[in-house]
């Protein structure tokens, strides 16, 4: 009997052993808070910039009077070292190494910063500011216009209340936003941009609606599904045609030159818009969206692989904000987006 009981006890112990961490977690919980995954605002593209501005307002307001004006080197109430440059860039000489600034910098006077500077903490520009070429910013907030010199690098975010200009060959990691406009130079690499208007060089307005167009007739086998037309296989709409409904195509979709779709379009493979083609609604592709020259998309453009926006093509409009979203994005000179761009694997201007 005793050997049996001993065996039973050992067996039970063996079974309970893997339960010990679970029992401990029940008795002494270590992880009982609701998951912190409910995203309240971080989807907002200027989220970090706004938070920084609010943080700085609180901190600066709590500074003593002597720290509120003129050039100043000191600490914010929370202990963060900061440097105010009021009159000239000479104040920026407080550096750890030549060209490397490890303090939070407040620029109070309109100025052009020197080339090849590295700012390890945030920069807050209260006056119009032009960054030097080859500079690296952790993050920068500007109350007015901001120009980033050629070959600049932004590591986390940049925001300007006025126009934000970006010099050629710059690399923009994280979120780049403006309340007015973002103007990108050539060969700029970026991830997320948000502004009423984003352009490569000079911005373009949406083209005029085309004049006389020929009504398009659906191919045999097209099926009406609710408010859209579904077509199996590839579809090419000839130039100069007008499509009055939304389209879902299970293959590839190509809109010929000057064709117009009044609704939205979706293709399981690529969507191609030839020169001057227009879609009033959204364009969605499971693979790529290729937009040639001077074409227009009125709604969001969403692709699961890549989008290419050709020369002078426009997404959205001044009163028609839109999003361009794809893992990879290419924008040619004059390409303009009214709203927001998301290219997590990298966007590039040409």
């Amino acid at each position, binding site marked *: 009997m005793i050997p049996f009981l001993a065996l039973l006890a050992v067996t039970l112990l063996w079974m309970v052993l*893997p*339960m010990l*961490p*679970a029992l*401990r*977690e*029940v008795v002494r*919980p*270590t*992880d*009982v*808070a*609701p*998951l912190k*995954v*409910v*995203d*309240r*605002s971080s*989807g*907002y*593209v200027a989220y970090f910039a706004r938070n920084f501005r609010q943080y700085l307002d609180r901190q600066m307001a709590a500074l003593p009077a002597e720290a509120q004006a003129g050039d100043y080197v000191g600490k914010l109430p929370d202990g963060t070292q900061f440097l105010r440059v009021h009159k000239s860039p000479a104040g920026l000489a407080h550096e750890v190494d030549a060209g490397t600034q490890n303090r939070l910098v407040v620029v109070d006077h309109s100025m052009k910063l020197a080339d090849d500077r590295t700012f390890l903490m945030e920069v807050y520009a209260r006056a119009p500011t032009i960054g030097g070429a080859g500079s690296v910013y952790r993050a920068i907030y500007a109350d007015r216009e901001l120009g980033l010199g050629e070959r600049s690098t932004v590591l986390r975010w940049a925001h300007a209340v006025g126009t934000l200009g970006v010099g050629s060959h710059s690399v923009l990691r994280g979120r780049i936003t403006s309340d007015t406009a973002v103007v990108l130079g050539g060969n700029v690499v970026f991830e*997320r941009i*948000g502004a009423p208007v984003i352009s490569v060089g000079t911005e373009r307005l949406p083209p005029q609606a085309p004049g006389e167009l020929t009504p398009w007739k659906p191919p045999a086998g097209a*099926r009406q*599904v*609710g*408010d*859209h037309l*579904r077509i*199996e296989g590839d579809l090419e709409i000839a130039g100069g045609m007008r499509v009055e409904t*939304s*389209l*879902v195509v*299970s293959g590839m979709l190509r809109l010929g030159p000057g064709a117009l779709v009044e*609704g*939205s*379009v*979706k293709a399981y493979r690529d969507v191609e818009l030839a020169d001057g083609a227009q879609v009033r*609604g*959204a364009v*969605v592709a499971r693979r790529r969206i290729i937009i040639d020259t001077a074409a227009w998309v*009125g*709604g*969001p453009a*969403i*692709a*699961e692989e890549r989008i290419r926006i050709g020369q002078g093509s426009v997404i*959205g409009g001044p009163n*028609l*904000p*839109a*999003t361009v*979203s794809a893992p990879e994005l290419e924008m040619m000179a004059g390409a303009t987006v009214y*709203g*927001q761009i*998301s290219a*997590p694997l990298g966007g590039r201007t040409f």
Partner: protein
Amino acid sequence: MRLALLIPLYAIVAIMVVYTIRHYLFTLNRLFGRHRQPYVDVGTASWPRVAVFVPCHNEERVIAHMLDALLVCDYPERQLVIIPINDRSTDGTAKILAEYASKFPVRVAPFVRKGGKPGKAAALKDAMAASDAPIHLVFDADYLPGRGLIKQLVGPFFDPETGAVMGRVVPMNVNKTLLTRLLDLERTGGYQVDQQARMNLGLIPQYGGTVGGVRRAALIDVGGWRDDTLAEDTDLTFRLVLAGWEVVYQNRSECYEEVPESWPSRIRQIKRWARGHNQSLARYWWPLLKRPTHVRRWKVVDGLLLLGVFAVGPLLLLGWALAIALYYMGVPLSSGVYVILAVAMYSTLGNFAAFFEVAAGARLDGSRGRIKLLPFLIVGFLVSLVSVSWATVAKIATFWRRDDQRWEKTERHRENGTVIP
């Protein structure tokens, strides 16, 4: 006699193996596959008009929190109307809704229902006519949407093929009881892994009836809400898919909910789900199997497995009963090393497939401590097994009664002063 027992047993084993493979495919996809969320970055757009329906039957404990959360969302005010459906409430719900309607006369427009069929599906069916907005979102009254959630849920509707959108449900009252902690783990597996894997693989994510919405044109296309079902969400999912619409799941569109805090409440909830889901199984397995031309083969397979999830419980119990009966009848199932290997393999992999899914989900969420509770999931699993089987048998026994649509409302537990995350 032996064959009559052996054939169904082997069929059940085959079905279990298929579900096991499904669990592993989904989990491995989430751990190593491409995360597909094409619409989540649509943050700027010319936003369409949206009606948010909130069915309420005796929701005085929670409805004010819900409305407060909706009223501070970042969706353009002029494009959004909130329609709480006061569905025959007998508590203080009507008074609360009237207060909000007088304070926000344009934004909150309650729909009052004093009679008719009970249940959410019937309430939605009646209230649908209250708005001609092109997008109809639906939230249960105990949910707490974040500021950006409405935009996130509307984003996928820019795709003209999207018929319905589903967001992720996250329990808020996790710290209340062991049950709420286990349900938190179950939700993690169900949404973070199961739903997102279906989205990644282009299968059929399920519209879950809350934290989601439907395109009005699609709803009209498939005949509107049906009030003869206890699972209007599953029912709508399959009608949309069969008609050629897509259902989109967005893992990043999270929303807090209140999960049941007591076992009786949980049992009532899961029995209702089982009855409703099995109704959909009976309705749609054959239309799906016939495969309309626009539905891919893998979607059909996934759809059938999705329809069958609440039939697995009773099948498993039946399998156990058959195996025990055969054992006592002296019938060897088979012999040889292959059987030993198969049994050992299933014991190692098969029995733990669902647990693997939950653990992977918790890992993806970055939560470490709660994974330790994984062994206790067997408790929830056994309770669900029995409850679902009971509900299924009861449904089969009363299949001829077409009025068997009794709606079991989920009990609310929120107290005054509860901290809202």
